[in-house]
């Protein structure tokens, strides 16, 4: 009997996400973010999302600027060289519209790792002595959200634990994160859902396995047999995948190893143009609401721009894009 296909349209896949869901994503800062899905979340006007991510970037800035996000738990947001901070997050945390819970990079990674391992917490010695663990700065606690009514929010931000195995001293236990949905962008996905990632895997495996549902945006859907010739190169098995959406260039303006470069000029424009809410709204009107779907977005970018970004097949990055002043 043929297996039911998980392939669907972007619109249908994003309809799996409910208002108030906890989300996480593939990628790292401005690399391999599922941007086409991010734009569709904004088009579908999802509300009160709770982002839990190892770090954020351009994708987080779009969701936060669009007012889709209520809570952000992470450690970093910005656009690397192309925008020194997260202007939309900064605006909304300063105005009190957004709840931000700060952890460190390793804390967030271990929170998702614990979620992926099925344990409630993991220990670490990272970032002791900092204000990240200042009890006064437990924002979800201060907001009254650690009362157990939302079962996805742990009752404490962290706990101190004394190591009694090797007497290593006082460590932290950080709580597991178990997002409702992970949206992952992969270079290749088999017809049944086997996922292959090229280049750095970032924290994709932990994010995908911690989540209850996994939506995979694939640059290419390929025959399942093709990926099974070298199973050691694959990251995620089909049974974890709930939806497959095939969309080329779907990480734009973030970069995708072996496929295309990050579009630095586009990201820089986003950063500069969205420092105010009016600026963000105008940007979103142009690039999200002003196009009906991903194809229209790509048409608006134009083939010349995309071809400049396309990776050299030997180097795995573009050799045509102008990156500096020389």
């Amino acid at each position, binding site marked *: 009997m043929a297996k039911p296909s998980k392939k669907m349209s972007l619109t249908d896949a994003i309809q799996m996400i409910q208002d108030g869901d906890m989300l996480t994503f593939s990628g*790292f800062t401005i690399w391999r973010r599922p941007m086409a899905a991010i734009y569709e979340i904004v088009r579908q006007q999802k509300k009160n999302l709770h982002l839990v991510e190892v770090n954020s970037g351009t994708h987080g800035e779009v969701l936060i600027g669009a007012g889709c996000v209520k809570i952000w738990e992470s450690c970093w947001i910005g656009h690397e060289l192309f925008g020194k901070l997260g202007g939309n997050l900064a605006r909304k945390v300063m105005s009190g519209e957004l709840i931000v819970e700060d952890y460190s990079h390793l804390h967030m990674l271990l929170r998702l790792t614990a979620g992926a391992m099925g344990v409630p917490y993991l220990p670490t010695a990272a970032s*002791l002595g*900092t*204000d990240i663990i200042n009890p006064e700065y437990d924002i979800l606690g201060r907001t009254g959200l650690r009362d157990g009514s939302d079962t996805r929010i742990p009752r404490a931000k962290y706990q101190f634990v004394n190591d009694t195995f090797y007497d290593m*001293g006082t460590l932290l236990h950080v709580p597991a994160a178990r997002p409702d949905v992970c949206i992952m962008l992969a270079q290749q996905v088999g017809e049944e859902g086997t996922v292959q990632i090229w280049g*750095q895997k970032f924290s994709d495996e932990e994010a995908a396995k911690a989540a209850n549902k996994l939506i995979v945006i694939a640059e290419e859907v390929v025959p399942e047999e093709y990926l099974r010739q070298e199973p050691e190169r694959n990251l995620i098995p089909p049974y974890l995948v709930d939806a497959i959406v095939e969309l080329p260039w779907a990480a734009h303006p973030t970069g995708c190893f072996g496929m295309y470069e990050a579009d630095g000029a586009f990201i820089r424009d986003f950063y500069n143009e969205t420092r105010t809410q009016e600026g963000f709204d105008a940007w979103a009107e142009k690039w999200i609401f002003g196009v009906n779907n991903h194809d229209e977005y790509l048409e608006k970018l134009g083939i010349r721009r995309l071809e400049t970004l396309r990776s050299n097949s030997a180097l795995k990055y573009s050799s045509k894009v102008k990156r500096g002043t020389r």
Partner: protein
Amino acid sequence: MRNQELAKPGEYKVGDILAVSAAREVQDGEVVFAGTGLPMLAIMLAQRTTAPNACCVYEAGTVDGRPIHLPASVGDARCAYQAAICSGLFDVFSQLQRGVVDLAFLGGAEIDKYGNVNTTVIGNYLKPQIRLTGSGGNPDINSLARRTVFIMVQEKRRFTEACQYITSPGWRVRKFPSGEMAPKQEVYGKFFRGGPSAVITNMAVFRFDAVTGEMYLDTVHPGFTPEDVKNNCDFDLDISRVSGETVPPTYHELELLYKAIDAEGIFLA
């Protein structure tokens, strides 16, 4: 012939002396964690001059890459070129926590006299005037590497008596639950491996007293005096231990930086 003569003031820029000074902190054979920007120039310059066996780890998950084009970020595909390992964050942060990282280069918006660094907020954390990027891996790396070197801009408001928010731990840190300041050794116990060993700015190089953990002025870049530096610190900087002038770049180092490492002019415009 490599021209090892020192360049004269006016023949090099601020970014050049930052990169060169940072590169000189790398010892051969070390495992080095580097972030985006000047740290990349520093490690790549060190590998081409005094530390050919240094191994560079980028936090997005590449180990000992041999890029032929300068990465624009630690997540760039260029970091993976000819790498020994291309993995992910779990691999490299676990290695860090395991204790294999000798040296790391970091940055920050604000630093205090104990080397605590703030990259999170300006103003009250609960009602910030300015929200910055947040911690990233800065505090993890600063917690768990043997030595860290900070590359910073020298301004009075950035060199403060006490950080408004401690994102990343220096030599005296908060001990919770009370939050009183205590030596890092006391808070980290057996995980204590070291801490900030140098701060490099556009004006000078600073180090930390082994006993008190307080920052002092070590060398001053050509063209500046110890008093210039002291006037650009909000805390009472110890300038009694100045060992001399920072050694400027050699012509060979400048050629490597501009012709080989950052030939495209990404960080050195």
